[in-house]
C-alpha cells in the first residue's frame, strides 16, 4: 500500500483491518515530516507522542474496540485550534508558550473518530494574512515552488497537505483562509456554512466570520472530514441544530441539469490568463457534463473587501484583548514589576507580543468601534453585509452553485506583497463575500499555471447546501486536467 497517496478511507480501512498498523502509518508520515518539512516550514510544532498514540490505537483495535471512521489517519492541525497538551500559538509570539488544557470541539471530534495528531501547522499570525508571511514561526514555502507563498492564512495546512506530510489537515477561514491557500497549493479546501462547525476552542479572529474546515487531497476526504467535525455543540451558541448529512455517501459526479451560476461581478476581466483559462475550462467541463450555466448578480460584492476588513478588524480588536500577559502567554520582561503602571505593562507586552499586521488590524478595529465612528463603520458594515447576503439569496434562486476564481492570480513570490497591505488585501476579493453572507464555499484544483503553480476553482452554495457544492466539486475533480499531479518535493 502506498501510504503517501492513500485517502482517509483507505488508511482507516487498512488500519482497522490490521493490514497496516496505525504505528506504521504514523512513523511513515513522521519520517516524511522529518525529511521534507525543513524546506517547507509547514509545521510549527510536532507531537512527540504521535507514534505512542498510534500504538495505543492499535492496542484498542487488537482488543476489538470500535476506534472510529478515521482510525489511525495522521492529521496536521492549524495553530488556531486548541489541542490539549500541544502548543497552540496562533502563529504569534504572544502565545508562544501557551499549551491549552482542553481540545477544541473540532479536534476532540476528530480524535474520537480515530485521527493521530502529528503536530501543529504554521499560519499567518492570528489568521491575519494571505501569504503565511506574518507568522511568528517564519514563512511557509509553497511545495510547488519554494520561492512562492503557499497562501494564507492556513498556509501551513495547505503546504503540508500538498506535500503529503499528513493525510488530512484542518484550516480556518475568515475571509478565504482555507480556499485561497488550497488553490495556491492544489488541494481541496472547504469552508462550511457559518454555524455548521463549532468554533469552541478555535482561537477567535473575527467571530461572526470564522469557520473551520478540512484541507485535504480529495473531495471525498473533505466530505468525510466535514461529517466528523460538523454539528451542534453545546459549547457554541452559534452552531446549528440541523442534523449532519452523510455528504460522502451521497457524493455524485452527475451534474446534469444543475444550474451553475456565474457571477457577473466576478467576470469583468482582470484575471491572470492562466486563472481565466482554468475557470473557462471548468465551465466548459460542467457544460459538457450536462450542467446549465446561468448568469447571476450580487452587485454589493463590489464592496465586500472593505466591509470584510471593517467587520473582521473590529471583532478582532475585541477578541485579541485577552492577550494581555496577565494570565497566560507572553509577558514583556519587566525588571521591577511593582514599579510600572498597568498601561505600560499592557503596551509593552502587547507591543512586543503582536506582529505588525495584527497591530494594524487591532488599531483599525479599535478605531471603527470608537464612540462616534461605530455607526459609520461597524454598524454600516453590518447593514451592507445583510444586503450582500440578501443578494446572494436572490442569486441562489436562479442557480445551485456559483462558480468563480478563488484568486485573481496563482501563488506569488515570497516578499512580493508583504510591504503593500492594500494589494495583499485584494487577494481576498473573491472569497470574503462568502464569509460575510455565511455561505459555504470551497476550492477544488482544476488548473496549472505556465510556471507550474496550481490553480483552483471556487464553488459557493446556499446556506447548508454543502452537498450541491461538493457534488459539483466531485464532478470537476473526476475530470480535472491536473489530477494526479504532485509537487516536486513529494
Amino acid at each position, binding site marked *: 500500500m502506498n501510504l503517501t497517496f492513500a485517502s482517509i478511507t483507505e488508511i482507516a480501512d487498512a488500519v482497522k483491518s490490521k493490514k497496516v498498523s496505525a504505528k506504521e502509518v504514523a512513523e511513515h508520515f513522521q519520517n516524511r515530516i522529518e525529511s521534507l518539512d525543513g524546506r517547507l516550514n509547514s509545521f510549527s510544532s510536532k507531537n512527540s507522542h504521535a507514534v505512542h498514540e498510534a500504538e495505543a490505537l492499535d492496542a484498542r483495535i487488537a482488543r476489538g474496540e470500535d476506534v472510529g471512521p478515521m482510525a489511525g489517519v495522521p492529521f496536521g492541525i492549524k495553530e488556531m485550534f*486548541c489541542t490539549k497538551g500541544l502548543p497552540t500559538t496562533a502563529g504569534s509570539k504572544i502565545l508562544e508558550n501557551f499549551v*491549552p488544557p482542553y481540545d477544541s470541539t473540532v479536534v476532540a471530534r476528530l480524535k474520537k473518530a480515530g485521527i493521530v495528531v502529528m503536530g501543529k501547522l504554521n499560519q499567518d499570525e492570528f489568521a491575519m494574512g494571505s501569504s503565511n508571511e506574518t507568522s511568528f514561526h517564519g514563512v511557509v514555502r509553497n511545495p510547488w515552488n519554494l520561492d512562492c507563498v503557499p497562501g494564507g492564512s492556513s498556509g501551513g495546512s495547505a503546504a503540508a497537505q500538498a506535500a503529503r506530510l499528513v493525510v488530512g489537515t484542518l484550516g480556518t477561514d475568515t475571509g478565504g483562509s482555507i480556499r485561497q491557500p488550497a488553490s495556491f497549493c492544489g488541494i481541496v479546501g472547504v469552508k462550511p456554512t457559518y454555524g455548521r462547525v463549532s468554533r469552541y476552542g478555535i482561537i477567535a479572529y473575527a*467571530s461572526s466570520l470564522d469557520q473551520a474546515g478540512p484541507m485535504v487531497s480529495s473531495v471525498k476526504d473533505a466530505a468525510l472530514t466535514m461529517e466528523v467535525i460538523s454539528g451542534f455543540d453545546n459549547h457554541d*451558541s452559534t452552531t446549528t441544530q440541523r442534523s449532519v448529512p452523510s455528504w460522502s455517501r451521497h457524493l455524485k459526479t452527475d451534474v446534469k441539469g444543475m444550474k451553475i451560476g456565474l457571477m457577473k461581478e466576478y467576470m469583468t476581466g482582470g484575471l491572470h490568463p492562466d486563472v481565466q483559462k482554468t475557470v473557462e475550462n471548468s465551465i466548459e467541463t460542467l457544460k459538457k457534463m450536462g450542467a446549465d450555466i446561468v448568469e447571476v448578480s450580487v452587485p454589493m460584492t463590489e464592496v465586500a473587501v472593505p466591509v470584510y476588513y471593517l467587520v473582521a478588524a473590529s*471583532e478582532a480588536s475585541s477578541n485579541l484583548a485577552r492577550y494581555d500577559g496577565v*494570565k497566560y502567554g507572553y509577558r514583556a520582561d519587566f525588571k521591577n514589576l511593582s514599579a510600572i503602571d498597568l498601561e505600560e505593562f499592557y503596551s509593552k507586552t502587547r507591543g512586543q507580543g503582536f506582529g505588525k499586521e495584527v497591530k494594524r488590524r487591532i488599531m483599525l478595529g479599535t478605531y471603527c*468601534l470608537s464612540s462616534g465612528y461605530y455607526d459609520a463603520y461597524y454598524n454600516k458594515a453590518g447593514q451592507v453585509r445583510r444586503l450582500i447576503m440578501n443578494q446572494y439569496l436572490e442569486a441562489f434562486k436562479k442557480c445551485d452553485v456559483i462558480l468563480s476564481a478563488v484568486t485573481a492570480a496563482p501563488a506569488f513570490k515570497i516578499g512580493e506583497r508583504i510591504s503593500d497591505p492594500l494589494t495583499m488585501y485584494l487577494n481576498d476579493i473573491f472569497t470574503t463575500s462568502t464569509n460575510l453572507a455565511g455561505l459555504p464555499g470551497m476550492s477544488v484544483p482544476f488548473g496549472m499555471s505556465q510556471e507550474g503553480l496550481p490553480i483552483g476553482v471556487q464553488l459557493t452554495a446556499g446556506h447548508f447546501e454543502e452537498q450541491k457544492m461538493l457534488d459539483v466539486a466531485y464532478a470537476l475533480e473526476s475530470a480535472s486536467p491536473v489530477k494526479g499531479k504532485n509537487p516536486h518535493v513529494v
Partner: protein
Amino acid sequence: MSYRGFEAVIGIEIHVQLSTATKMFCADSTEFNAGDNENTSPVSVGMPGTLPVLNKKAIEYSIKTGLALGCDIRRKSVFARKNYFYPDLPKGYQISQYDQPLCENGTISFKVDGAEKTVSITRAHMEEDAGKSNHHGEYTLINYNRSGIPLLEVVSGPDLRSPAEAAEYARTIRQIVRYLDVCDGNLEEGSMRCDCNVSVRKVGAVQFGTKVEIKNINSFRFVEKAIEYEIERQIDAVERGEKIIQETRLWDPDKNRTFSMRTKEDAQDYRYFPDPDLLPVIVTDSMIEQYRKELPELPIARAKRFQNEHALPEYDAQVLTMEKALADFYEETAKESKNFKASSNWIMTELLRELNQANKEIKDSPIKPLQLGRMIALIDKGAISGKIAKTVFQEMWQSGKDPEAVIKEKGLVQISDPAAIEKIIDEVLAANVQNVEDHKTGKKKNLFGFFVGAVMKASKGQANPELVNKILQEKLK
C-alpha cells in the same frame, strides 16, 4: 427635602447578583466560600477559543425581577461587549447589555417616614461580573471566582431626593429580590453593590447639576452616609463658587468621606458592539406568562393583605413582611393558631427578640411555625395561661420540642377543675387564718391580691386565674 436652599438629585445603580448555581456563561459553581480560583474554567478565565453559552436560569431570574419592578420585558434583547483593559477582566471585555437591555421602564413604590415614594426604574440589564484583584503592596493577586457570575444591574431614574429615600429604595430592591429568591441580598459578600449618582441644584431649578458617581458602597447605612456627605460637599463647593467636576468617587467608611477615583477626562470609550458569540435573547409571551404566574406575592401587596384580611395594624404588617421567610412564618403560625394578632405579637416580640439575641435567621428558628401556632391555640383554649405560655415558649426555644410535650413534661397544664382549685384555696386560707379574719373584718384592705398570689404560687402558676378569682371571692364573702 431642602438643604440650605438646595435640593439633591439622586439615582442609584444596584448590581444584583443572581443566585444561580452556575455562572452566567459556563458551568462553574457560584459558591461563595470556594478557595481562590477554585470556581474557574477555561471559559471564565478567558482562555483562547472559549465561548460563552447563556445560563437560562439567569434569564428567568432577570425577567422575574423585571416583572416585579413593573418593567417592560424586551422580546429581543442583545448582549454587547464592553471593552476595557483590567487584569481582573479576563477577556478584555465584559459581556453586558447596552442599547437593548432585557428590562426597561419600571417603577417601584415604598414608604419613607410614612410618605409614599415612587421611583422609576430606567432599566435592568444583565451582565457578567469580573474577578477580584487583591493588592498586596508589591504585587497583586487575582481571584477569578467572581468572573462570570451573573448580575442584573438595576438602574433607577434620578428620582430620589434624600439620603433616607436612597437607602429605603435600596432596601426595597433588596427586599424584592429576596422575595423572588433570585438574590440572597448579602451585602457583605458582595451580592448587592450600589453605585449612587448624586447632584445638587437650587430648589426650584429645572436643570440637573453636574453628577458625581459614588461607587461600590456595600451597606445601606453607607449609602445614606456617603450621599449625605456628598450633598454637603457639593453644596459647599457650589456656595464657594466652584464648579462640580463630573467624576467617580469612592466612599471611605473609616474616614466617613468620599474621595475622587477618576474624572470624566479619564472616562473610557468602551467600544460597545453586539457580542457575535451570543444570539439575541428571545423572550416569548408564554415565558412571560409563566414567570408572572410563578411570582410570589410581593411585600407591599402582602402587607396590605395582612392589614385588610388579618386586621393587623400597619406597623405589624410592615414588620412581618420585611422578609419573605418571616411573612411565611407568620402566615403558617396564624393559620394554625387561628389568631392573627396573637400570632403577630408572639413573633414580633418573643420570637424576633430571641432570634436577634441568638443572631439567628428566621429559617433557623428552633421553634417552627406550626409549633408556635399550636401553643397560641392552647392559650386560647385555656389549656395554659399567657404567663405559663412564656415558660413554654422558652422551653420550646431551648429544646425545639412541641408545646404539648413541654407542657406535659414540666407539668405546666392549667388547672381548670374548680374542685382542685377549691382544694388549693382552702389550704391557702387555712394557712392564713389571721389574714382571712382581717380581710373579712376589713381591718386590712387590699388583701384580695395577696390571696390570689398565694394561690397561684401554691399551684405553681397553673391554676386558671379566672377561676381562682371567682372561687376566692365566694370564699371570702
